[in-house]
């Protein structure tokens, strides 16, 4: 048993910490969010140079190793700094889908482009009626000879506005929630019939709703076997869940730390508010939440890296996402409450972290959804 990070993981952590300290103060982050693309291409190039974009990938795919523990080391640091660059959508989620489904030369090309930093990707899986069920797909894919015609509406496509390519989940056969019949297509967003409605999320992240109307893609753009993409999609999303949960753990740590600091300096009734036991015990509870959240995310990452069954892995991931979802509510709300009015303002980073973790709690399924998924297995 060993819960310490390896030498390589410590170096990775150090490298992210140094970058963040140098390049990611609150004002810089705000100016990045306010920029046209909502993230910094320069930063992204730097990520590539630092080798960070190889972290999600296995060595045989040219990556750093692809362990989930490596991933949480990075994501925690990203979370602490509330980093906005689309690492999760491009490298973790879409990278995982390509590594799991694409074949041969195309796979090599796409992965190389991701790791070099020259490709932005977004995965369109969610729909208006799907909530968090990945098998619920109304978007249709009809094969006509060498082509496939896509029709449907996708929502909540993170990094959709800036994606060079989209990965679209569509149904080829079966009923709305059947596990069989779901395929994944690589789609050029400039294709005729693709209508991208871009917007910023509450946490400043770029997202999109995407309409697909008689969109024609070559059948060779189907990644993997026809109608058999769901299990790979679920596995890739499970990995992405551990990534966002780790990001939340980092962000919650910052929220706790900033709240404790503030309570030591903010005076009311002639004394720092941190001397009031009514607030102290709430901060102790925030600490407990942070520790439990971190513990269960480590558990899930270790399970993903283990040789246990797919079901055991899914259970672990859902347990983690559910528990972190609770921690997000408790720590996030208390951070705002203990800061009082100043915590409500747009000028303080605490509120921005609160918004970010709230989005993370919803992403890929909230606490209740994952508690139910956990119980059903």
């Amino acid at each position: 048993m060993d819960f310490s990070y390896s030498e390589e993981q410590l170096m990775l952590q150090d490298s992210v910490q140094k970058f963040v300290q140098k390049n990611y103060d609150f004002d810089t982050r705000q100016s990045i969010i306010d920029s046209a693309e909502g993230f910094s291409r320069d930063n992204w190039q730097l990520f590539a140079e630092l080798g960070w974009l190889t972290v999600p990938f296995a060595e045989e795919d040219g990556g750093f190793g692809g362990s989930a523990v490596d991933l949480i080391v990075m994501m925690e640091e990203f979370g602490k700094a509330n980093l906005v660059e689309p690492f999760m959508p491009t490298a973790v989620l879409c990278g995982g889908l390509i590594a799991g489904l694409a074949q041969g030369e195309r796979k090599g090309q796409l992965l190389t482009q991701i790791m070099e930093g020259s490709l932005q990707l977004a995965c369109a899986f969610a729909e208006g009626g799907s909530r968090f069920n990945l098998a619920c797909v109304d978007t249709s894919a009809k094969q006509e000879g060498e082509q496939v015609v896509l029709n449907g509406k996708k929502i909540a496509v993170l990094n959709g506005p800036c994606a060079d390519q989209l990965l679209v989940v569509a149904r080829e056969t079966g009923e709305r929630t059947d596990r069989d019949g779901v395929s994944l297509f690589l789609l050029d967003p400039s294709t005729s019939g693709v209508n991208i409605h871009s917007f910023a999320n509450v946490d400043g992240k770029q997202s999109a709703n995407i309409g697909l109307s008689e969109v024609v893609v070559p059948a060779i753009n189907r990644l993997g076997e026809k109608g058999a993409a769901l299990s790979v999609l679920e596995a890739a999303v499970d990995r992405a869940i551990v990534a966002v949960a780790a990001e939340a753990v980092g962000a919650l740590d910052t929220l706790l730390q900033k709240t404790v600091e503030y309570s030591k300096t903010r005076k009311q009734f002639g004394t720092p508010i941190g001397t009031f036991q009514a607030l102290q015990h709430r901060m102790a509870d925030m600490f407990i939440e942070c520790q439990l959240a971190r513990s269960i995310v480590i558990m899930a990452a270790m399970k993903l890296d283990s040789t246990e069954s797919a079901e055991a892995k899914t259970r672990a991931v859902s347990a983690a996402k559910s528990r972190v979802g609770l921690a997000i509510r408790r720590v996030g709300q208390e951070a705002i409450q203990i800061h009082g009015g100043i915590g409500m303002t747009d000028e303080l980073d605490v509120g921005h972290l609160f918004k970010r973790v709230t989005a993370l709690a919803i992403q890929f399924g909230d606490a209740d959804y994952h508690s139910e998924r956990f119980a059903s297995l």
Partner: protein
Amino acid sequence: MNADFSAEEKAFQVQVREFLQKEFPAEYKAKIDANIRLSKEEIVHWQEILYRQGWAAPSWPVDHGGTGWTHAQRHIFATEMGLIGAPEPVPFGMKMVAPVIMAYGTEEQKARFLPDILSSKVWWCQGYSEPNAGSDLAALKTSAVRDGDEYVVNGAKTWNTYGQYADWIFCLVRTDTTAKKQEGISFLLIDMKSPGITLKPIVLLDGHPEVNEVFFDDVRVPAENLIGEENKGWTYAKVLLTHERTNISGVPRGKRRLRALERIAADTDDGFGNTMMDNAGFRGKLAAVEIELLALEYAELRTLAALSVGKAPGPESSILKVVGTELAQRMDELFVELAGYNCLPYLPEQFEDGFQGTPQGPGNSASAALTYFNNRKLSIFGGSNEIQRNIICKHVLGL
């Protein structure tokens, strides 16, 4: 990073498991599964079995007859004991007074007291809390006045667990009334047969006199029973309180109880033609408890891993007590919810050996309310959960 035990540790796990399956008496296991209390003789008998195996004191050093186990081995042992339901040795001698004697006692005191603790010949109880000194333990007033080679002890201790079984009591007593309250306290060992000691049982909410009030009326205690220096007792007691903060989360026991909840839920009608296992609300609560147990298990493993590489158990381990006890109490609530009417008849005798009645409902439904009442103690004893939160604030958050 990995949560796996080494090959040696796995072999040890198998050894412990086989030992428990063979040596933990089947009739005790049956009683524990049926929520029947073991008698003093049965508890002592079980501890003697562990003693003969050389496993009576997992945390003691080899010099004193302990196992010399690593933290991982102790964890494995406690886990296997918890999973099978075998009671851990009564902590007052083994885990509480013995480490203080080892650290601060004289060679004579070590030779006199430690072997009998190890072999379960002597049953110890704790004399800390007083009617007016609970969380504010240093406010204790029981006095010990030196008179020649003796101390004369007067006062009252309370919440004394199983004092009715005890041969000896370790006490915090006030030896200097003029000093700051923490600085006038001494650590004194007292024979329970001493003239002037009387015991008054305190019946708890489950009808069982698990604890006592102990009165000291001019009790004469040989001065050689003082541990360490006079007026340094608070320091020694604090060491004891930070001792053994691992294996306190109750994860193995929690796992056993979770399985029991699942079994009872599957056997409990929901009144609409299904069982409580089909009740979405209940299943949600059960899942939440199971998830919390996982988080707690890994929080404890992280503490254990830190200990294993020589780090001291930090005040962070206070969270194990808080979360472990609050989770156990959540499970008590679920047992009550499943039991419904079945737990309302007041039957304190159902925990006693030889109980002839037929408790209502599946599994241990009939005892759910009494267990729920009794386990409210969990967040009160061992430093109340509010005190644990104070520790986190002071020593972790710097508040």
